[in-house]
C-alpha cells in the first residue's frame, strides 16, 4: 500500500473485536447457507419484494440520475476534505453543548462508550438500530461491563433475542420467518403474552409492549447516525418504527457513535440524501421518522450528548484512490437486494456486518487482508461481476471495478509473500502461453488430447481437481477436432488474408 495523502499511518480495524471479520472464507460459509431451504425461500421472496418496490418509487423521480450525480459529488467532496470537515463538525457540536470523542478503532470506541455509560450509573441502555455499533461489537463490550443493551428496532430485537447475527443492513432478520420469530419471542421475551400467535401484527404489538417499558425506564440512549452536518453540528437518524425517536428523545444521556465518513458539508446537502436514501433502501418515498438534533437543547430531550467519531480502518480505505469510493456508501442496501449472490447465500456468509456487494468492498478495506486464505480476502471474489449493483447505487459507487481492484490487491499480497501458490503459477503459465499465437496454437493442440475424456459422447462429465469444481455440477464440451485458426488456415490459406477470393464462406 502507498501512504495516504493525509500523511497518516495506515491503521486497519483490529482483529478479535467487533464484527467485520468472519472465521471462514466466503465459499465455505456460503456452502452451509445454500443448504438452508428456509433461508433461500425467505431471501428470494424478501429481496424480490424490495427490488420491485424500489424500482417503482425510483422510476417516478424525474431527476433521479441528477440526484445520484449530486450524491456522488457531495461524498467525493467530503472524502477530499475530511480532516477539515471533521474539525468543523467537532467545533459545531461543542458550541451547542455536545462532547466529542475521537476513537481510533473499535476497542477505543467501546471503551469510551462503556466509560460514559458507567459514569451515569445506568445498568441498561436502549439502542437505535445502528450498523456502526454492530461493527465495533458494542453490545458485547457493554455486557462484559455488566450493562444490558436493549435493541429497540423490531428486526434487531429479533436478532438479539435469537442470539443471532444480522444478515441484512436494513432488514437484519430477513432470514427469519414469522413462526421462527414467535418461537424466539416465547423463549426469550419474559413479558411475551402466553397466547402469542405468529400473526405479524400480534408479534409487533408484543414487541411494542416489551419495548415501551424499556423506553420509559432507560436513562441512556445509544445511536448511530445516518448523516452529520459539519456546518451546523446536526446529527440525523432516519428510521421507520419510531423506536429511534424514543431513544433519541426520552433518555437523559444520548451517546452517538458514527463512522467519520458519515459527514455532509452543509445542511442543504441533506436535501439530496433524504431523497436518495428511503427510495433506495425501503422503497418508500419518505421514511416515517427523520430525527435531527444539534448538541443539547436545555429542558428538551437528552441533557448530555456525546458524539464518538470512529475511524476503525476508514482512513486506511481513504488512502486507496480507487477503493475509497466505498466510503461514499449511505447503507441503503439496494446493492444487496439486487445481488444474485447475496440473494442465495444471505448476509451471514460474508462474515461481516456489512454483507453483499458493498460489504465485499468495504469489509476487506476496513480490516486489511493477508492474501489468499484470509476470509475477508475472499469477499471481493464473491461476485460474478454481473454488474447488477452499480446501477442501483444511489451514490454511484462503481462496485464491480472496486471488486476487481481489491482482487488485484489480494493477488499482489499473495505475490509479495513469495510462497508458492498454485493459482498464481497457473495464471502465470496461461499468460505466458497466451503471449504468442504460436504457443497458444500449441496449447490448443495439446488440449485436444482432452477429447478422450468425452468417451465419444462429446461431453466431459468428470475431471480431477481443480477441474472437478466445474464438473461436479456441469458438463464440459470436449475440445473440437479443429480450432478456428486451423479451419481458417485450411480454408482461407494465408492466415492474415481476408480476400474473398481466397476461400468460400462455408
Amino acid at each position, binding site marked *: 500500500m502507498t501512504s495516504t495523502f493525509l500523511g497518516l499511518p495506515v491503521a486497519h480495524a483490529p482483529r478479535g473485536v467487533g464484527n467485520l471479520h468472519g472465521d471462514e472464507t466466503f465459499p465455505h460459509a456460503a456452502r452451509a447457507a445454500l443448504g438452508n431451504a428456509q433461508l433461500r425461500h425467505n431471501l428470494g421472496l424478501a429481496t424480490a419484494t424490495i427490488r420491485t418496490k424500489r424500482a417503482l418509487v425510483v422510476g417516478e423521480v424525474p431527476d433521479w440520475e441528477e440526484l445520484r450525480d449530486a450524491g456522488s459529488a457531495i461524498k467525493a467532496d467530503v472524502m477530499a476534505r475530511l480532516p477539515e470537515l471533521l474539525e468543523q463538525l467537532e467545533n459545531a457540536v461543542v458550541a451547542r453543548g455536545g462532547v466529542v470523542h475521537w476513537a481510533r478503532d473499535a476497542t477505543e470506541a467501546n471503551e469510551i462508550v462503556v466509560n460514559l455509560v458507567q459514569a451515569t450509573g445506568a445498568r441498561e441502555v436502549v439502542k437505535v438500530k445502528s450498523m456502526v455499533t454492530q461493527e465495533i461489537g458494542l453490545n458485547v463490550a457493554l455486557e462484559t461491563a455488566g450493562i444490558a443493551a436493549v435493541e429497540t428496532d423490531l428486526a434487531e430485537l429479533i436478532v438479539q433475542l435469537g442470539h443471532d447475527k444480522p444478515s441484512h443492513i436494513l432488514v437484519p432478520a430477513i432470514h427469519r420467518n414469522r413462526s421462527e420469530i414467535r418461537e424466539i419471542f416465547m423463549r426469550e421475551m419474559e413479558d411475551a403474552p402466553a397466547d402469542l400467535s405468529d400473526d405479524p401484527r400480534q408479534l409487533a404489538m408484543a414487541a411494542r409492549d416489551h419495548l415501551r417499558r424499556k423506553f420509559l425506564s432507560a436513562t441512556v440512549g445509544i445511536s448511530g447516525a445516518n448523516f452529520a452536518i459539519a456546518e451546523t453540528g446536526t446529527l440525523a437518524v432516519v428510521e421507520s418504527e419510531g423506536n429511534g425517536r424514543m431513544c433519541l428523545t426520552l433518555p437523559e444521556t444520548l451517546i452517538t457513535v458514527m463512522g467519520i465518513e458519515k459527514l455532509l458539508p452543509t445542511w442543504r446537502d441533506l436535501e439530496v440524501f433524504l431523497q436518495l436514501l428511503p427510495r433506495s433502501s425501503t422503497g418508500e418515498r419518505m421514511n416515517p421518522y427523520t430525527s435531527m438534533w444539534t448538541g443539547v437543547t436545555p429542558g428538551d430531550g437528552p441533557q448530555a450528548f456525546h458524539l464518538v467519531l470512529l475511524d476503525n480502518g476508514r482512513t486506511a480505505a481513504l488512502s486507496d484512490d480507487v477503493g475509497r469510493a466505498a466510503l461514499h456508501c449511505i447503507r441503503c442496501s439496494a446493492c444487496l437486494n439486487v445481488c444474485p449472490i447475496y440473494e442465495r447465500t444471505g448476509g451471514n456468509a460474508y462474515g461481516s456486518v456489512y454483507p453483499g456487494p458493498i460489504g465485499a468492498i468495504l469489509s476487506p478495506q476496513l480490516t486489511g487482508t493477508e492474501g489468499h486464505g484470509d476470509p475477508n480476502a475472499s469477499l471481493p471474489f464473491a461476485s460474478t461481476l454481473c454488474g*447488477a449493483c452499480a446501477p442501483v447505487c444511489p451514490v454511484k459507487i462503481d462496485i464491480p471495478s472496486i471488486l476487481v481492484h481489491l482482487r*488485484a490487491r489480494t493477488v499482489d499480497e499473495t505475490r509479495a509473500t513469495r510462497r508458492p501458490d498454485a493459482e498464481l503459477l497457473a495464471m502465470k503459465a496461461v499468460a505466458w502461453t497466451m503471449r504468442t499465437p504460436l504457443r*497458444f496454437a500449441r496449447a490448443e493442440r495439446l488440449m485436444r488430447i482432452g477429447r478422450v475424456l468425452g468417451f465419444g459422447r462429446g461431453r466431459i462429465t468428470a475431471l480431477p481437481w481443480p477441474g472437478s469444481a*466445474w464438473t461436479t455440477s456441469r*458438463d464440459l*464440451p470436449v475440445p473440437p477436432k479443429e480450432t478456428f*485458426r486451423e479451419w481458417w488456415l485450411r480454408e482461407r490459406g494465408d*492466415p492474415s488474408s*481476408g480476400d474473398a477470393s481466397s476461400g468460400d464462406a462455408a
Partner: protein
Amino acid sequence: MRIALFATCLGDAMFPDVNRATTIVLERLGHTVVFPASQTCCGQMHTNTGYLHEAVPLVRHHVETFEDALAQCDAIVAASGSCVGSVRHQHAMVARTGGEVALALRAEVVAAKTYELSELLVDVLGVADVGAYYPHRVTYHPTCHSLRLLQVGEKPLRLLRAVRGLSLIELPAAETCCGFGGTFAVKNSDVSTAMLADKMSNVLSTRAEVCTAGDSSCLMHIGGGLSRLRTGVRTVHLAEILASTEDIA
C-alpha cells in the same frame, strides 16, 4: 466494409463454429472478414481474477495485433459481450495500472473500433434481418456484460425477431446472472451452481428447445448444466442462429 474478426481465445479453442458462423453472416451481407492470425487472448480472465500484472502483456499483444488490423480494416468484431467488454472497459485501466500510459491511449483507439456482433450488425451495418432461417423455439439469455457493460439492449432481440421460422419465448428473470463469472464458477462453485439451477429452471419453464446468448462462456455454463441434467435443451450462440439458412439450418 472490411472487418477484423477477434475470435477470442475460448471461441478459437472451444467454439470454432461460433466464429465460422460470424464469418458466414458478415460475408453473406457482402462484407470482407479478416482474421489477424497473431491474436491470442484479451486477458479478461487475468484481469477479473486480479492478475493485472499478468494481463498487461496480453493487453499489449492484443492492441498491437488489432492496431495492425485496423490499418486495413474499418472495424473489429467479436461474438462475445464479455471479451468486448474487457477490451472496451478494462484494457486502458490495465495498461494504466501497469504504468503504461502510452499503451492505454493506444488501447482506447482499438477499443473504440471494437464491437460485439449485435452492435456491429445493428448499429454499424444498420441491419436487423440478416436473412436467417431457424425453425425452432428459442429463448434468449441477455448475458450480464452484454446487458450492463455494453448495454446492447434490444439489439440481439431485434436480430432474433427477424429470423424466419424462429419463435422467440421470453425468458423469466432474464437479467439475472447465470452464475458463470469466469473463475467464480470454480472458486465459488456452490453459489455458482445455485445460480445456475435457478437460471435452468427459468429456461425450462419456457419450453424452448434452444437457449441462445451472445457469449459462448455463459452458454458453456448454462449448457453444461442443461446437459448434465439431460434436459434435452440445447445452447446455441446467437451467431450460429443468424448464420443458419434453409440450406444449412
